[in-house]
């Protein structure tokens, strides 16, 4: 177990392993995406209330659900950085922050485009939207802290602390915004049609898209982490050999 753990922490080992993994992530991702998008656009029956805008759900829901995973991911990586000083964890955390900001922004944008029809407006201070927006701001905070600190080691630890604090805060924000929201406006007006009541031809493509976009997230994160490894380990023997081989 410990051997495995320290091995996983070695950037070189991760670089080689992820290189071998990538095709096995990219191929299912591409297949599932094609199947999912075609299914969502062509075969899903229009919703009885929302008509064809229901097709937006197949992009929005996967993005929104992944966006929620970024702070826990960064907090775990931050804890590993602080406790075991594993360089790889910080490389992942560093690349996860901007990726998370993009995913959150896209979840917000697609939600707002979807909502422009259901709610009749582009933006409402709905609980989910508001906490998503605040999470976006927190991610921007982590990114700007990282770019402000020049020393890599100090930036790693500082961002780790901020990610852990931010992760706790995201949960408190979620709770308090829901509370705020239920008191400000009667709930229920905006909720989606009950998902449990949906037939399989609606949720099966959704599951496919969720898996596909999770794979897409994994591939993006691995690709940018590999770049980060090359850049930070550029003085290592194995990177120099790799560069010469190109």
């Amino acid at each position: 177990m410990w051997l495995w753990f320290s091995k996983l922490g070695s950037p070189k080992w991760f670089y080689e392993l992820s290189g071998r993994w990538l095709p096995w992530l990219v191929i299912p991702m591409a297949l599932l995406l094609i199947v999912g998008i075609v299914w969502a656009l062509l075969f899903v029956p229009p919703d009885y209330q929302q008509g064809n805008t229901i097709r937006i759900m197949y992009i929005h829901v996967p993005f929104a659900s992944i966006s929620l995973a970024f702070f826990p991911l960064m907090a775990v990586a931050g804890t590993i950085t602080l406790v075991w000083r594993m360089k790889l964890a910080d490389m992942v955390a560093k690349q996860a922050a901007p990726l998370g900001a993009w995913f959150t922004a896209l979840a917000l944008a697609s939600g707002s485009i979807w909502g422009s029809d259901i709610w009749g407006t582009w933006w409402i201070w709905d609980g989910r939207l508001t906490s998503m927006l605040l999470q976006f701001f927190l991610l921007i905070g982590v990114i700007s802290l990282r770019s402000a600190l020049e020393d890599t080691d100090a930036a790693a630890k500082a961002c780790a602390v901020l990610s852990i604090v931010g992760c706790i805060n995201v949960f408190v924000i979620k709770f308090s915004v829901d509370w705020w929201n239920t008191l400000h406006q009667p709930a229920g007006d905006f909720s989606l049609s009950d998902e449990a009541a949906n037939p399989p031809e609606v949720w099966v493509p959704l599951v496919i898209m969720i898996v596909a976009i999770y794979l897409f997230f994994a591939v993006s994160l691995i690709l940018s982490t590999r770049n980060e490894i090359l850049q930070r380990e550029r003085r290592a023997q194995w990177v120099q050999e790799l560069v010469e081989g190109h």
Partner: protein
Amino acid sequence: MFETIQFSSLGEFFEMGGYAFNVWSVYMLFILFFFINLYFPLLKKKQIIREQKRRLVVSKESTIEISET
């Protein structure tokens, strides 16, 4: 589940029952984001390797110069 295609003509498919803007802008955003997010890391990798190669050459030349003098 795959019984029917929900649209009878291509025009109707693009129209999306009057929601063309909403549906297509979200899918366009996604596709744009998808390709950018895969393309930029690959571009960056090339840049890093090019940069590193240049550095290696420079450092080798300088070590040769030092050893000659």
